[in-house]
């Protein structure tokens, strides 16, 4: 089980990093989201994997480690806020620069200028 869990985290990291290294904003955002899943799972696992343990105080003697859970809970919410910020930044960037390309200053010919006929323009 531990091996499986660790591989899942690894796969998420790999996919996240690969997406982050793409040159457009949207894949970067997806990569960031994926990476935050991986980080949350990793942090969570520092309390070790506990199947069928109690999360709430009661009759049980075996409890899951609450500390990483508390940390990850806020991490999830903050992670969302940060993702949201990056997404909006991407929209703003595209609106201001006319492209969602973030890999260097050289704008390639594939930038979406040529699709302009489909756009209504400024609102």
């Amino acid at each position, binding site marked *: *089980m531990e091996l*499986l*869990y*660790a*591989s899942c*985290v*690894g*796969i*998420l*990291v790999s*996919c996240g*990093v*690969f997406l*982050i*290294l793409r*040159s457009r904003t*949207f894949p970067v955002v997806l990569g960031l*989201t*994926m990476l935050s*899943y991986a980080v949350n*799972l990793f942090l*969570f*696992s*520092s*309390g*070790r*994997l506990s199947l*069928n343990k*109690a*999360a*709430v*105080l*009661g009759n049980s003697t075996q409890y899951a*480690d*609450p*500390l990483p859970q*508390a940390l990850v*809970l*806020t991490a*999830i*919410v*903050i992670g*969302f*806020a940060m993702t*949201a*910020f990056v997404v*909006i*930044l*991407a*929209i*703003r960037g*595209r*609106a201001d620069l006319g492209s969602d390309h*973030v*890999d*260097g200053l050289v704008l390639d010919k594939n930038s*979406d200028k040529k*699709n302009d006929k*489909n*756009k209504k323009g400024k609102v």
Partner: protein
Amino acid sequence: MTLLWIPLLSLLGSIISSMTGKLTRNQSTGLTMLMPIIALLMTISLAPAVFSGEVIRQTISWIPLLGIDIAFRLDGLALLFVFMILGIGILVIFYARYYLSSKDSMPKLYSYLMLFMTAMLGIVMSNNIIQLWFFWELTSISSFLLISYWWHKAEARKGAIMALTITGGGGLALLAGLLLLGNIVGSYNLDIILASREIIQSHAWYEVTLILILLGAFTKSAQFPFHFWLPHAMAAPTPVSAYLHSATMVKAGIFLLARFYPALAGTELWFILVSLTGLTTLLFGAYIALFKHDLKGLLAYSTISHLGLITLLLGLDTQLAAVAAIFHIINHATFKASLFMATGIIDHETGTRDMRKLNGMWRFMPYTATLAMVAAAAMAGVPLLNGFLSKEMFFAETLHQQLLGSMSWLIPVLATVAGALAVAYSARFIHDVFFNGDPIDLPRQPSEPPRYMRVPIEILVALCLVVGIFPNFIVDDILKAASFAVIGGYVPEFKVALWHGFNLPLLMSAIAVTGGVLLYTQRRYLYQYHASLPSFDAKKAFDSTIYVVTKWCQRKICAIENGSLQRYLILMFVVVLFFAGWPLFEMNQLGGQKQLTPIDVHNAIGAALLMIGAISTVIWYRTRMISLLMISVVGLMVSVAFTRFSAPDLALTQLTVEVVNIVLLMLALFFLPQRSPKESSSIRVLRDLGISAALGIVVSSICYALITRPLESISDFFLANAKTGGGGTNVVNVILVDFRGFDTLGEICVLGIAALGISKLLVNLPLIMPSSDSEGRPWAKERYPILLASISQSLLPLALMVSFYIFLRGHNLPGGGFIAGLVTAIAFILQYIAHGSNWISERLPINYRKIIASGITIALFTGVGSWFFGRPFMTTWFDYFDIPFIGEIELASALIFDVGVYFTVVGATLMILASLGQLTANTPKEEVNI
């Protein structure tokens, strides 16, 4: 408590004077002068104790763990400077009231002046060298503001930048030197440092430390070759020049030399460096001053020259030299401040400072002329004036030193030459301005200035005379006390007197005076000679150096920072890979001793789905919609994993966040291209695959190594105390709102800030609104499906009830403010999706910003509330109540804190989504209700 109040009052004065914009000029001046006058009275009350040899200290513990204190100290040297800073400061404020025209902002000048005063007081009174440095930097910044006071003039801006660059650079050197000094001694406390002379001077770093500290002092005190900022700083209003260049800013460097004299002086290196720099500056300044046609230019170079003189004295290896230096500090401050003020009057009344135009002023303003002439005579060192006394002492000390071995006689000779030059430029100041024929083309008809404008000059000139005639009457106590602080212990017997009999210094003075007068009368030849010299413009050299340096930096920055996000990220990933991967190779065995749990079918299926989802996201990343769907599978499986591994709170949070996140990304996709073009080369794909695979392997190895080792956790504490101390059985929630409530407070603040940032990012967004999708199909006309609209409306109360339930039970069962907030937010988001934001804002005019603010405020005040019960910030209180019909119920202050969390989460989430969703609604900006 009094010591701290001296700089504090002056800071208070800065704030008060900045608010006097609506008052009359007299009221504004009076209010501004009030604070330094009180501070001066306080200082006077402390003076007798200091004169009797006491050192007054005051320490406020700040971060005791790191040994950082706010520490003030008042000894003789500090007292002398406090007197000068406050005394001349008050006179300058009074003078500025008459100097400034009605167009200039008075509160601005006053508040900068007072800020500068605070900084200077801080420097001279600090008992901690890091604190000293802080105030040192504050003088650089506030003098920048003062010099650039007339910011509409290019020369003022350039002069200010130059002063800031030079003194700021020196400040960095000083910081390095002080840090080294603190390291050598093992303390940043000035008392300890001053008492550790042997340790410092025998240390291997002594030379470096000394040079760095001297760099700081020399740049500030405009010593050659860093002198050139000072003449350009003359672009400041004259009251500012009078303050900065007589008693304060440039004296800060001198103060530093005197302050560290007991600890750093006494070595060969000190004597050579300090005295030669001083001597060069003395001669150079005096020589250039003679050729300046601008009155303030003359005074600027004369200031440089006098600073050189004081530096030279501090660098001489005789004990009385330090006494002479301190005496000259006092005298220079008085006569130079009055000369600057007199120059200001002349400038004010005639409209020019050019000595080629200014002639025969005696006829127009005889009273001012008399004052200026007395002050200039003091500058020249004419008997019966204070300048004469300290110059005599200076000449005497140059005769006693043994600095240059057998060539030591050079120093008194050069000192006499400098004395003659000083007489010459002082003579020019007197003769060229007040006599020498008639004025030429004056912009204004000159007359005497307003009566009170002369008062500060009268006071200062009176001081010059009294000190000059009865030296022991006024300065004896302060001079002895300050010398005691500088020399550190034994002060040799000295007697300041007008008449010492016929001796060598008197002869030197006589030679200087006759030589100076001769030089002035024969100045034509000197001017011709000077004009034939190749001219060197320090400003141009400075500008071009700065230009070259910034260009070079810009090129280097551009080479590293080429605008490619991916490039920066790769650099970061590679660094992480190296530092995280390296220790793995040094480990003997990856797996730990913990017994592994077997894999069951459910887990295997879940893991498989998660991996497939992740990999599919990557495979279809160019078709953005599909990859978004795929990543939602991953998010779902993550929340399933949390459920599986006994973390219901996390599962709930992940699930709700996932919904919000996917809705947000979907909405964002509307504004972004639907597809990513294919543009990575095969090589690049290979490289990225390599990096991401390596990183994945490293992370999963670390994860495996971590979870196969036995757990040693501090969680037992939380498990044991959650019920008894926090009053809840849901330990995760108790940690969030109670044990680590302060962290949570910070986190909801971050959430609020992110939401506010987003709403600001969307202001005036030039939006590209696609009317069709990427394949050219127009969007559906029917924007809001009827079925969804009717269902969602009836769902809303139910959803709100569920969220209320989740919120209430949060302390004891999975739930709480975060999750309840997200559930509420989702319920509203569904309304937005079903009806559009216009429909919502008509029916539900909510300002989300206010919700966020009230959430954070509630949380904060719950924490503050415990103060009223004499407990530390955020102490929880709880008790059980028996309420009829409902039964026993527990009420805890943590619940109120959780309400704050709830509101912040609702507000932030809705603000993010609603701001973005609003953009699709095509409404004019006024109706936006976020």
